[in-house]
């Protein structure tokens, strides 16, 4: 078999694996979509504003309704020490007005 045919075969196998994964992923997504009405009821009925991803600190459990500077509020000079805080995007740098 020519090397080019072997390479094409390898490429096809990878593409086929990708297609299979995407098809199965679509099935999983459909299943998640089917559970959406239940989640909507939970969000509306309890007035939720945040996902339960990390529960270690209030500003990572409820980032939407807590201050982004909350980790620095414990005392002056306090530093952020929770690992999930590293997911926060840093604020734009302060620029002195001319």
């Amino acid at each position, binding site marked *: 078999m020519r090397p080019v045919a072997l390479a094409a075969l390898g490429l096809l196998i990878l593409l086929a694996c990708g297609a299979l994964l995407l098809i199965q992923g679509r099935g999983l997504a459909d299943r998640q979509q089917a*559970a959406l009405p239940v989640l909507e009821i939970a969000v509306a009925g309890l007035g939720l504003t945040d996902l339960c991803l990390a529960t270690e600190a209030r500003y990572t459990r*409820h980032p939407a309704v807590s201050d982004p500077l909350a980790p620095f509020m414990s005392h002056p000079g306090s530093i952020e020490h929770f690992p999930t805080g590293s997911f926060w*995007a840093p604020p734009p740098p302060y620029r002195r007005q001319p």
Partner: protein
Amino acid sequence: MNRALAKQLNLVDFALSSLWRRRWKNGAVLLVFAGVIFLISSFHLVTTALTATTQRVLAPAPDIVIQKMTAGRQESIPLAYQEKLTGLFGIKKVVPRIWGYYFDEVREANFTVIGVDPEQMPLAEHLGQVLARGHFPAAPANAAAPEAEIAPAALGSLVSEALELEHGAFFSLFRPDLSLKTLQVSGLFRPESDLLTADLIALHIGEARDLFQVPAGLATDLCVYVYNPAEINNLARRIAEALPDSRVLTREQVARTYQAVFGWRSGFAAVCLLAALAAFAILAWDKASGLSPEERREVAVLKIVGWETPDILALRSWEALLVAGFAFLLGLLLAYIHVVYFAAGLFRPVMVGWSVIHPHFTLIPQLEAQDVLLLFSLTVLPYLAATVIPTWRCASVPAEDALSG
């Protein structure tokens, strides 16, 4: 067969043979390159999946949330503020909530305790559908003295697991004055809603007030629902004017927060990207700094036997494209498997931190053509450029000079 196509196929054959001759070096480059693409793609897929999930799931969140601020910190908001909003046209209702955190010292776990009045919340009559067993806590029979009663509570699946509580079981939580409040599990949230409710202890607002000993006339925040969603921003501005000591958050701002949290600029992304880009820079530097004497000799020999400069460029382009193409596909596939089937296990320690309670959820990234193109142009195109340019410089030198020097 078309001659041009036959020529290109022969070139690919030759490129593959050339790659195979240096298989260990090329194999290492392919693996490192695939690793870089895996890392960048994994992070991209995780952030897009989380952002999409947030947008989808949190769509029915309250239109506006009002918090009272004192000295830069959030404080309990007086219920009297509701009266100040009565004159604002367009507000459907203002609903107080009492919520906060309860730290279980034995398990070192943080629970979220949320107290609402189900009669006032939208869709609350359907809350039973979110429960696997039991019912949502109703109002205490003796609303004037809830401390005298056993409070019903609906628990998130991981709370019931951590506290080892079944439906109907009794348990106690400490009030701030260390007196005990007795609760009974009236319902258990479905595990399917873990992404929202895994750490929740849901109570009636009266019971939550008693548990946290929040004085009458205060609440944690106010949820505002409006008639016309197009008026949310306008109403938020008017509320902020009416209540100058408050912070007013709209649903759009909540969504924006998550876009910022999971954005490319987040601290963790920066660390990942820096590591990946450093690896890639070393790879590109190695390629761009020039060809090895052996590679230069090979180019010279090819020119002596009659190859033209464009042929040599085409050969090297095919080599680079084959390595980069396979590395890209491999990295992307592994990233998808990592995110979907292993729940982004490599990032999980950072995503959950020291959380004792964290839900098991499946992230399904919607891989769009634009994502693939973005990742391709971030990784493969620079590699191609870094490979072809030194070859062009070498191939444009006369063969005898290349051989001698």
